[in-house]
């Protein structure tokens, strides 16, 4: 949870536009070096370029490439960790997943390079506390920050006279307008399960708040609580009304994004990486597509932003830990952070990046994050990995049988309770 400190830090950046260049290690690095990641598209190409540049700067290093598909990475990295032959460094999602492998003693802390390069001054304290610090020690360097919002087709909104909704009632009214015009309001591509979580996360954050959600994520609240049932009930109302593009489980997130781009659906709840995807299709941010923050449902509930943070970590069994740590320092270069963020449509965590470098959409999103008092990791990064799998399946099940949401929640609670009990 990135609280006020993130807000303060981002506001500070917006105002000051600090320009701090990280100190790169100049030690002679030798031997083979392996860096693995899950980025595809622009991010994949650019991270490859970053690694190659880093290796080129150190004559003694020899890179061993290990490209892995995004979805496959989630399992393959665990196999490598279990086999004690992991890459020296790899990208990983901050939150529950890093916590799990830190607890499994598969990562090494990076406090030495953190102190030596004064990295603490280059990132918001909120990010350092919630995304990089585990069991009291720093384990990761952040590369990019994502934010989840409703991205929409501006032409469709204009054509049907719909303004970006700011309340739940306005959202429902907008959805009804599109339905009357024969256009599904919401595209959701839950083929790979995770996109469905954003609806659950947002509804729960807006109706029950981040504090309750944290309790639920930690097994201290129940999926059959009134708070969760209410969130699902609202989601069910939208689904039963026919506002979603049919067969959500048949499409991946980018197919849902394309449904919006093509005018087959009006909007989709997705992370900022959708901006990179749209720009790769030649669409212009703020002209062809735009966003609005998930509407407020209950005025009394403090708002929270939602999203994942991508980091790089160093394996405990890294064959070349010196090179891995030097690479992590290399990643903190504001130019690298900015280029990665711009290409992928995301935000750079470094406070040394000039906020004026982004397009109008991302610049406004920076303001949204700054305005929200809380920042939460999405469901599958916020709870136990085993519970995350149960939940991700349940979101798919909900999209197939929304009317059975109470039964779904009972089954989720039963399975989640068993996992939390086993993890105690």
């Amino acid at each position, binding site marked *: 949870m990135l609280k006020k400190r993130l807000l303060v830090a981002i506001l500070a950046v917006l105002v000051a536009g600090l320009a701090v260049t990280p100190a790169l290690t100049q030690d002679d690095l030798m031997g083979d070096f392996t860096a693995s990641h899950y980025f595809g598209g622009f991010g994949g190409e650019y991270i490859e370029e970053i690694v190659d540049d880093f290796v080129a700067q150190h004559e003694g290093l020899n890179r061993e490439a290990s490209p892995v598909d995004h979805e496959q990475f989630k399992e393959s990295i*665990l196999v490598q960790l279990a086999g004690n032959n992991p890459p020296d460094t790899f990208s990983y999602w901050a939150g529950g997943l890093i916590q*799990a492998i830190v607890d499994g003693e*598969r990562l090494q802390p990076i406090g030495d390079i953190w102190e030596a390069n004064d990295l603490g001054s280059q990132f918001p304290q909120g990010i350092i506390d919630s995304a990089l610090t585990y069991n009291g020690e720093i384990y990761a360097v952040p590369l990019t920050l994502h934010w989840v919002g409703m991205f929409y087709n501006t032409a469709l909104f204009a054509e049907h006279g719909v303004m970006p909704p700011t309340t739940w009632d306005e959202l429902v009214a907008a959805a009804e307008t599109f339905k009357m015009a024969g256009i599904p309001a919401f595209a959701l591509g839950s083929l790979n399960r995770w996109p469905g979580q954003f609806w659950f996360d947002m509804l729960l954050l807006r109706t029950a708040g981040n504090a309750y959600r944290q309790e639920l994520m930690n097994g201290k609240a129940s999926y059959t609580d009134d708070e969760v049932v209410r969130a699902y009930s609202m989601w069910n109302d939208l689904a039963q009304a026919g506002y979603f593009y*049919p067969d959500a*489980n048949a*499409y991946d997130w980018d197919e849902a994004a394309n449904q919006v781009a093509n005018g087959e659906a009006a909007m989709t709840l997705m992370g900022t990486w959708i901006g990179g995807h749209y720009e790769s299709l030649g669409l212009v941010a703020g002209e062809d597509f735009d966003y609005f923050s998930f509407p407020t449902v209950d005025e009394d509930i403090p708002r929270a932003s939602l999203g994942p943070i991508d980091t790089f970590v160093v394996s405990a069994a890294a064959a070349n830990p010196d090179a891995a740590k030097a690479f992590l320092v290399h990643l903190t270069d504001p130019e690298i952070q900015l280029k990665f963020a711009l290409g992928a449509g995301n935000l750079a965590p470094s406070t040394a990046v000039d906020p004026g470098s982004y397009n109008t959409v991302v610049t406004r999103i920076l303001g949204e994050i700054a305005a929200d008092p809380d920042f939460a990791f999405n469901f599958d990064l916020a709870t136990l990995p*085993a519970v995350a*799998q149960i939940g991700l399946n349940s979101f798919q*099940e909900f999209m*197939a049988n929304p009317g059975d949401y109470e039964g779904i929640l009972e089954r989720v609670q039963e399975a989640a309770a068993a996992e939390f009990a086993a993890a105690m």
Partner: protein
Amino acid sequence: MLRRHPWIIPASFLALPLLVYFTFVILPTMNSLYYSFTDWSGYGADFNFVGAANFEKIFSDRLFSNAIKNTAIWLALAMTAPTLLGLALALALQGKRKVNTIYKSLFYLPICLSPVIIGIIWVWLYSPKLGIVNLFLRSIGLEDLAIAWLARPNTALIAVFVAWSWQQTGLNMVIFLAGLTSVPAPLVEAAKVDGANYWQTLVKVIIPMLRPATVVVLALTAINALKSFEVIWVMTKGGPFNNSDTLAVFMYSEAFRKLKLGYGSSAAVILFLMTLVIIVLYFRQVAKSDELYE
């Protein structure tokens, strides 16, 4: 020395393959068995020995029961559809006509493809809007049947099974074709002379003579069905929401998605035992056939 110890030469020839077999088959199997008695996450440095707790838990696990049910459906379909189709193709394409050779090659082609490729091809075929399956259904007026085959809970398993069968049928056809070459032509001719029609000849002469080939087909199909994983993983990853989970997919999901390798290993052990039963039955049947023909 060799005269006194004649076993040295065969033993030395056997040593290397046995070593390879022990390293890559026996050792990993024993390793899985060992981990099935632990609570190892699969990535952590430490784990605890939990005795039979994983096995006690698995039999009350709703998702395990679901995987068993799906595996049973998969196995039942696998033993019938690709077997009968393989036999039908073999009967239709036996003989040395040139056109038969072309068709045999076409039906055999899927065996040459990796299951991952098979999965990707069929994901395209089933694509809700642009897939050939739905385009065909729409073209003949069956708009209502043009559904998202892999996304619907009641069609996903069958849709994936069809893709898997595409490969298995070709393999069965080849085995049956080999079996048909061993059916004595005079026997078939004699049946015809005795007035048997094609159907009677098939049922009373050819199929009984194909018994060894049928045993091989059924055993291989059952083993392949039980261990089928790649096609399912590529096409649905066991989804939507576990509706195409088989035992192999359940095992993988528990081990590598839920990060419970010890628990996943217990599913692997159960799957291994089920496969072992089929292998034992197969070898007993082969032994019986050998006795019959000796």
